[in-house]
């Protein structure tokens, strides 16, 4: 009988060992980059996997899913969306980086890719991808307060914060894009907030509704219904111009704070993907953004359909990367 137990145990350990090896070899396989499909002219011939390093139902996910719906028509293949929501998006990003550069795995993510590198959490950034371009931008990055708040404008906020340093409680997710916005705002106005981590977009809304927090930096599209219901008020947005969808919300610039920060969503293939393939994808992206139906749908989310080709996208990210690094979020 004891022999039996031993055998079973040995078997189990063997299975375990094989699996662990399998898990390790995954990364090894990834680095063995073959030159991609030889028939890159007929791309795509099979479904394309889109990796979204964020949770299902969030803004990144929604923007991607909407775009994917139209890309399917343009490219004539199925898009499989995989949400890899772990470790602040780094796991999903790494997954794409380690995948075969054959055009069948693509990343759809945003500013956080740059920020993770600056924070020293990972050692790769946007330039480690073959960027296929951008299709949408969120220019509604706002400071939002509860309607009961005494702050009616940025001036009120700045005046109060200057007199009472670290007394205004502002919600963020540490190391996220909104965290950078706060640092940039502090640097531009000479104020000091009590910056508190409360979690993701919906956690911020909960905290503001519950009155635990004075201000949340978030996107207008995500809080629009709370503004309409009279629960929340937007103090301003960090874009160049007012939004068409929210003409009443002034920009930061108008209120004397020279700060423009937009959330961009880029598409990236693993480095070494054949140029023709990236090109095919980019062209499809351009066509979708020009599609009026798509534009209408995106405006419903209060985000702006903008097409940037790979060169323009890289240029934008290079500029932003420099700006973020200067803010020194560490």
């Amino acid at each position: 009988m004891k022999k039996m137990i031993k055998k079973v145990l040995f078997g189990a350990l063997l299975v375990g060992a094989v699996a662990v090896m399998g898990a390790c070899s995954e990364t090894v396989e990834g680095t063995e980059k073959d030159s991609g499909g030889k028939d890159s002219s007929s791309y795509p011939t099979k479904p394309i996997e889109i990796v979204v390093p964020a949770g299902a139902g969030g803004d990144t996910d929604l923007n991607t899913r909407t775009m994917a719906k139209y890309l399917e028509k343009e490219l004539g293949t199925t898009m499989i969306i995989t949400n890899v929501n772990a470790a602040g998006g780094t796991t999903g990003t790494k997954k794409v980086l380690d995948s075969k550069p054959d055009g069948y795995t693509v990343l759809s993510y945003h500013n956080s890719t740059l920020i993770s590198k600056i924070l020293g959490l990972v050692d790769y950034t946007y330039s480690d991808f073959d960027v296929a371009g951008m299709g949408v931008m969120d220019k509604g990055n706002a400071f939002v307060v509860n309607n009961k708040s005494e702050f009616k404008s940025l001036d009120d906020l700045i005046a109060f914060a200057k007199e009472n340093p670290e007394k205004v409680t502002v919600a963020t997710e540490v190391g996220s894009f909104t965290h950078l916005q706060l640092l940039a705002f502090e640097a531009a106005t000479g104020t000091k907030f009590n910056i508190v981590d409360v979690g993701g977009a919906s956690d911020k809304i909960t905290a503001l509704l519950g009155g635990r927090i004075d201000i949340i930096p978030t996107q207008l599209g995500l809080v629009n219904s709370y503004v309409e219901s009279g629960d929340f008020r937007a103090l301003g947005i960090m874009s160049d111009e007012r939004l068409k969808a929210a003409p009443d919300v002034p920009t930061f610039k108008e209120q004397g704070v020279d700060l423009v920060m937009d959330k961009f969503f880029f598409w990236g293939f693993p480095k070494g993907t054949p140029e023709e393939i990236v090109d095919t994808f980019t062209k499809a992206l351009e066509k979708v953004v020009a599609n009026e139906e798509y534009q209408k749908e995106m405006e419903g989310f209060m985000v702006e359909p903008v097409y940037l080709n790979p060169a323009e996208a890289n240029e934008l990210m290079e500029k932003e990367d420099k700006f973020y690094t200067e803010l020194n979020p560490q």
Partner: protein
Amino acid sequence: MIEMLLAGFTSVMTIKIILLIVMGVALGLVFGSIPGLTATMAIAICLPITYGMDPIAGMSLLMGLYIGGVSGGLIPAILLKLPGTPSSIATTFDGYPMAQKGEAGKAFSFAIVSSFLGGLLSIIVLIMIAPPLGKIALQFGPFEYFAIVIFSLTLIASLSGDSLPKGVMAGLIGIGFAMVGSAPIDAFPRFTFGFSSLDAGFDLLPVLIGLFAISEILLVAEKKYKNKLKVDIKNISYKVTIKEYLDQKWNFLRSSVIGVGIGILPGIGGGTANLIAYAAAKNASKTPEKYGEGIPNGVVASESSNNAAIGGALVPLVSLGIPGDTVTAMLLGGLILHGLQPGPLLMQNHGDVVFGIFAALLIANIFMALFLFIGMKGFIRLLSIPQNILLPIIITLCVVGAYGVNSRLFDVGALLFFGVLGYFMVKFKYPLTPLVLGFILGPLLETNLRRGLMLSQGDFMPFLTEPIAAFFLLVTVASLGLKFYSGWKKKRRLKVY
């Protein structure tokens, strides 16, 4: 209100939508019953299918999936001691022993009826008082969550089995495993030893099905030649008398209230609710020693609470646009994709859709119970499949499920690792449930402690002075004190005699 609900019913009472609900429930049950496949995955897969439908039809399908996905877990939990979803962990405690005693039919009857009633109660709560309940959920910040988690962790005492020290150790091991990977708040990688695949830490699903399913399969494999499990399928009784159901009324009510309450709080869901309800039922029982040996009360507690958590989790979603767990986050995405803006105005602007959703939930709940009752005898036949055929299939499904969570082979490795760990823990008589509880609650505890300290700028006092937090901490101290006192009294009595 009643008019709106009737209007909701009229809008879903078309053949197309009823068929969608039926499909959703059936598919959900399949996903829920396979360890590793969850309601979240079912909804993620079906979400794109709903694009072309009108909002009510699309959401009806998703509601069917949700109810089916949470309920399906009871099938493998009772028959095979494998929790199909985190929501049915506690169902294995008494459901499986009942099946072993030849009472699988009875266990099913209890589980299905309590799932149905728990779901029904929570949907009624959702329809009647969602807005005020949602407001209560807003009052819970980091201090309050911290206190609740502390309270929940003390439940390890009730779920430890024979040895409290071993239970506490298992709980601490669980917290330890939860620490691997990106730290909460600053995302700094911990205990990764430079392996980037550890950056994301361990996912709950591989941990859970590894600990419970894989370890159990290893144990069964080892036992195979010792004693063949024989259950006489023809003689399984399904009859439960009305009186037996009525005996469960307080247990049912308590568990459902716990389910709704936990469901409402964003961030804690059915996975925790069933364990807490089970522990509460055991603590309230006059015969706690019978729990774990196949008592229907355990099945009722677990199954009514996890279905009650459904309505609870929908409360903040419908009234405030805040998702309570991963499933409701998917549903939130579904609403937005259908052009509905979730939030405080949802009920006002799209009342027709909201009440259509309510009606769909009620209908899905009925079909869930119906399907399970019809299928019951078929499921029980699973027991007649030779285990040398059944178990490899289950392992395959577990591996597929673990891979499916995040499409990472690493999770499969983790699954097998936790399977072997679970095997040894059972061998050395360490209870598994505290490990899972520690694994689920550890990160919540740490995150809320750190967030609370950020909010109070380093001051510990609010953890004790915020009223709700103070209340839960007091309850914790009182319940622990009571346990020590009764333990001490027992010991003294033993000495006297």
